[in-house]
């Protein structure tokens, strides 16, 4: 009971404190809308990037037979347990424009700059969100009966056709669940973003950053934004309920 209350009380507080009549108005202010739009845009890009980069990693982890596989998994999981601020500092050390490992080269050759840019936000969000996708898809891949792929092969399907027409179809639910989790995590990302990409309104000030700032100047708006993030989390949980809570349709 005590444990449940511990989780329930903050939620109740959030709902009770909200001045419902003002929530709608607060969500309409330009500052809040800019933050929401930026968050949506960056988190979707981060989800896409995490999917493109994460699916091959999941495949290697699920199907690969090689030394150092557990090391690779540990590496992929690290962002889940790493304090996000440390993640941000690490990203700076790698991609920082002036003295990162590859940052100066990327800027000189391609003109890509991460700090104080949307690209930086996307990168920071991908960094923290990708483990959720990799883990979920890896689990799905392990559970997948390889004989479906064998059957496709004996029916004349090449490796790419088999992947596209069979593997991807069977992985669909895991992929969707992984992407939803990664997206939710990307949307809420704070520490790595503010450390790595900074806090520039309209470019890197995502919703969580805005919540933090508004709390001092305009607590009502902060509360409204928090409710939006809460709603997103609840929606993701409900969408994934079949997967975790054994609810059958």
């Amino acid at each position, binding site marked *: 009971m005590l444990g449940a209350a511990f989780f329930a009380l903050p939620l109740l507080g959030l709902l009770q404190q909200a001045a419902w009549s003002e929530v709608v108005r607060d969500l309409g202010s330009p500052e809040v809308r800019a933050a929401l739009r930026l968050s949506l845009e960056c988190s979707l890009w981060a989800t896409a990037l995490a999917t493109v980069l994460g699916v091959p990693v999941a495949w290697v982890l699920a199907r690969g037979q090689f030394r150092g596989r557990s090391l690779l998994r540990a590496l992929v999981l690290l962002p889940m347990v790493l304090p996000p601020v440390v993640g941000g500092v690490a990203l700076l050390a790698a991609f920082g424009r002036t003295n990162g490992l590859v940052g100066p080269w990327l800027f000189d050759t391609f003109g890509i700059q991460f700090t104080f840019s949307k690209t930086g936000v996307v990168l920071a969000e991908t960094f923290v969100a990708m483990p959720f996708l990799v883990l979920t898809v890896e689990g799905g891949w392990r559970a997948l009966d390889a004989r479906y792929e064998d*059957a496709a092969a004996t029916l*004349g399907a*090449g490796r790419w056709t088999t992947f596209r027409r069979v593997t991807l179809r069977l992985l669909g639910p895991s992929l969707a669940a992984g992407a939803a989790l990664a997206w939710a995590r990307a949307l809420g990302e704070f520490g790595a973003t503010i450390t790595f990409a900074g806090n520039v309104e309209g470019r890197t000030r995502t919703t969580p950053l805005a919540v933090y700032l508004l709390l001092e100047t305009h607590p009502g708006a902060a509360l409204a934004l928090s409710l939006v993030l809460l709603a997103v989390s609840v929606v993701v949980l409900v969408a994934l309920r079949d997967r975790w809570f054994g609810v059958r349709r």
Partner: protein
Amino acid sequence: MTLVAAGTARVGALDVAVDLTVADEIVAVLGPNGAGKTTLLRTLAGLHPLDTGRITLDGTVLDDPAAGVFVRPAHRSVGMVFQDHVLFPFLDARENVAFGLRSRGVGRREARRRADDWLARVGLADCATARPDALSGGQTQRVALARALASEPRLLCLDEPLAALDAQARVEIRRALRRHLAAAGARVLVTHDPVDAAVLADRVVILEAGRVIQTGTMDEIALRPRSTYVADLVGCNHYRGVAADGRVTLAGGATLVVADRTVTGVVHVSVHPRSVGLHREAPGGSSRNHFAGTVTDVDGLGDRVRVRIEGAVPIVAEITAAASTELGLAPGHGVVASVKATEITVYPA
């Protein structure tokens, strides 16, 4: 169409002999679980590579590790019906059957038309739009067969095609399968059920612990089983021993008098259960082999009764129910089994 396979494939700790020649015929690979039957099929389909040797189909080399040749499954023209069928759950029956045609570049409408043809041929014209989870076991099996046949493979492999079915469906599907497999082409089917082998196959290959023990028709094998496993399958008594001067000395030390004096050295001995007589006491007369023992099992089979006897020479006898009643046979009873020398088959190991 001729498949010639001679080689080995390692799976886990087992080296499986991939030793098989299949012309326009149906060959059954019969063996206990874990004998390497599925591995053998997978090497033919290209789902498991050979470690040594070579597989050719109509003269084309499919797998030859020494020469560095390995043809991928997609390019082999080897069809496969998997155990529990492995239909794509996200496609309906028609799309499952059309999958192979689509993969080989047949247009969507043409592939569907031919898929419908195949479904009609296996008697499932009504089920074209049904998803696999809405089909019964027997229907699933027929869709899997149609799916494999639709690509018109030169070699068709079937892995335990009837194992996933209940007893009722087995009988029906087995009969239908015999009809569908009768069309020209090389067919290999793997099974652990001697009835499947007897009904479906022209020839049988016995695989035990990765090794080919015996090949031949089911009748040949039933007459001269070369291992205890085969003897049990065909319901025969089987022993190994050393023959000399019309006597066979078994591993346990007991001896059998046999009529055939031409075979000597290490031999197999088989005795049909119906050739075994049972008595309360050792009889005289022409039955020249007598073994005393204890009844362990009595199984009624209609008007026949199978009696298992443990003793110096363990033996199974099949006698009439009337004779069994007369002898009052029950587990624990002492009994004497007799076999005429002329009823014992002896053949070299």
